[in-house]
């Protein structure tokens, strides 16, 4: 099963929005969802800072700020 990682920060409303959209898609599209708090990792904080949420599929950055559902569907399909 593919893993979607959301790089986020506490109190980031775009992150909360992305997480809730992804949770709603999780059962249908079948992927693991993992949230990483960038404030707990100096390297991630430097890399992403205010450019969050960043959404990655199996380590590849797909989106920042917003989830593009159509692209996510296509990318997950092509991995099957």
């Amino acid at each position: 099963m593919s893993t979607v990682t959301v790089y986020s920060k506490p109190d980031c409303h775009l992150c909360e929005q992305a997480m809730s959209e992804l949770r709603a898609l999780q059962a249908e599209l079948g992927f693991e969802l993992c949230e990483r708090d960038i404030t707990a990792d100096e390297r991630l904080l430097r890399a992403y800072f205010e450019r969050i949420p960043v959404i990655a599929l199996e380590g590849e950055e797909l989106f920042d700020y917003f989830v593009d559902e159509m692209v996510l569907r296509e990318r997950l399909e092509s991995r099957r």
Partner: protein
Amino acid sequence: MSILALETSCDDTCAAVVEADGSISANVISSQDVHGRFGGVVPEVASRHHLERVNAIVDAALREAGTELGGIALVAATQGPGLVGALLVGLSTAKALAAARELPFAPVDHLQGHVAANFLRAARNGDEGFEPPFLCLIASGGHTLLAHVRSLDGFDVVGRTLDDAAGEAFDKGARMLGLGYPGGAALERLAAGGDADAFCFPGSRRERARGGWGSARQSFASGLDFSFAGIKTALRYQLEELGAAEARGRAADLAASYQEAIVDSLVQRVERALEQTGLSRLAVGGGVAANGELRQRVRELGATVHIPAPALCTDNAAMIASAARYGEQLAYPEYLTLDAYATGERAP
């Protein structure tokens, strides 16, 4: 006396150093190119970018002016109107800089800033500044209004848009024509090769002549207020009617006719306002002032026309510093509780 000013009301992070006589020592503008892929400015993303850049932009302005915070006598910032999250970044930064040195602080209204851009002296262009009284058309992506400027520290609004701004109509029209965002300039380039009489859009002279849009609403048809929502819808219907292939083939004609309608609408009200106020001097500001068709048409009105340099027409901090010279200045620590305002007038 040097003034340090910040402007962050939308998607440009701006800092400037301006002297008491209105000469500009530095005018740094950092535009956020991140919004294009979303088709418009995303407020939350704009705020974050301001946050990332504001300190570096202030440093750059001070460096370019050859000064440091110790050489600044007054700090100013845009208080509103604009995107509140974006405004707060500039306002809070400016208040903190002022407070650190116990300097006075001037909160500035963004629209007063656009008016005050005309008071600046731009030596490079031989511009000695333009003093009241004059009529000022401000047309940008967020604002469209006509101001009767009687003094250096205020203006009366004689006409304003009832719905969208002229610049927004340009940008959204450009997006519908597939020119990307922001596309006002691209639309103008495309229009240059088109026939402005090919299509008839609301607000154009031809449309008015045949008794169309607005003529039924007498008070609007004869007044100084603007409306640009209808023209966007009209373009959408026109594109649907033509179909994708023909619309592509006639894109230049569509752009030219669409541009003509927006410019007609602006120029007609400017002409009427000059008549009604008896003013013979006109200033134009805001991003739409960059439009060549508009510049040419207002110059044909017979008034003395002043249009600041392009970098002073679009959002910038030099205009905020200029306004700060004549507006309210608060002593430390009176300004620490100041808040930004999104719309309308400044909170008392």
